[in-house]
């Protein structure tokens, strides 16, 4: 291949390549949008309601980080013993 052929080939590849990438991803945008609108229109998914029972939630929230910390510490301690 001569050097000018090589350059032509490169330009051609770039145009075709970027073109194909864009064509493909634009097609994907369309298809994805269609899927999403079909789904939301015809098969609406009942989204999980925001957690009710704020009282219980608050209570659990106040417990959890502590418990998580304790578990974490326990695991760390356990590992430390093992090594």
């Amino acid at each position, binding site marked *: 291949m001569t050097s000018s052929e*090589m*350059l032509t080939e490169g330009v051609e*590849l770039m145009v075709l390549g*970027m073109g*194909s*990438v864009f064509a*493909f*991803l634009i097609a994907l945008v369309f298809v994805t949008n269609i899927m*999403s609108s079909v*789904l939301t229109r015809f098969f609406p998914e009942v989204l999980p309601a925001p957690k009710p029972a704020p009282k219980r939630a608050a209570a659990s929230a106040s417990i959890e980080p502590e418990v998580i910390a304790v578990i974490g510490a326990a695991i760390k301690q356990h590992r430390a013993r093992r090594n």
Partner: protein
Amino acid sequence: MDKLFELWQTTGIYQIELGQLIMILICLVMIYLAIRKGFEPLLLIPIGFGGILANMPVAGMAESGGLLYMFYEVGLLTTVFPLLIFMGVGAMTDFGPMLANPRTLLLGAAAQFGIFGTLLGALALTAWGIPGFEFTMKEAASIAIIGGADGPTSIYVTSQLAPHLLGPIAVAAYAYMALVPMLQPPIMRALTTEKERAITMTQLRVVSKTEKIIFPILLLLLVAMLLPSAAPLVGMLCFGNLMRECGVVERLADTARNALINIVTIALGLAVGSKLNSEAFLQLTTLGILVLGAVAFCAGTAAGVLMAKLMNLLSKQQINPLIGSAGVSAVPMAARVSNKLGLEANSQNFLLMHAMGPNVAGVIGSAVAAGILLNFVG
């Protein structure tokens, strides 16, 4: 005494060549950077260690019958390893942010300019006869794919088009992925105004479980119809992602993204390391590869940012151009860079989730670009 002399002759000190010594030093630097600077350690430690093992004289671990050679033959040349890695990546990836805003796929498309621009550049430099740049079409394509900022994609393409360049290309791909936090910000700042960087984006809508399940199948079918040469890579990505999202094969998804991908990563790293021999690496072309790789990353980053600005011109729903750079993939580093620069401009501007859209789109984009290159050049 004969035996003692024989023993001396089999020592590494007696047998080692300068090239091997240099390669071992390079591998040590790689391991140092991986451990101390956090440069993609999951890959660069196995690659670097594999490189040391491959460059030890006498042991022959990278020669026929050696462990690294077997990993290379069985897993790399057959493309089994990169495809299994892609499956694991699929099982890790949440396409939700992209599905909430599919337009970000265009950013992932634009960033592939890094690949094709570099390909043109490599061919031009070869045509002009610049020393260090003497590449065939197949070599140029393998190098250009570094701009995809996706390790397994680079390895997949190179193992099919130019396996003799696997060492330098894989190292360059992972090294630049690690350098994303340094390479990208100057370009991003240069191409955007302070005001653009401060643009806040509306919170992403909630994506339903069903959308997430259907997306990988849709993507696979589209690839099958339009670009089947990208199908192995994209197909395994989609398979992993379907296992992740469908909710009924959690144990398979869990294995795909843990035990299996870890095993394959170890073997893949060692296999790539086996190609870090001095004959392939200590060449002027390696410098060329490194230069082109850096150009590819920068071009991709710039193209992503400029595409975002173009989209802002054409649509009234404004996006922050900082998320454009995440289109090169390098998940999740590039998205974090976008987030960081966004916060610098506006301390209430959390771009992370918005940047995850183009970020995973970039994975799809470079797999698609890989398919195109394999189609035309392979």
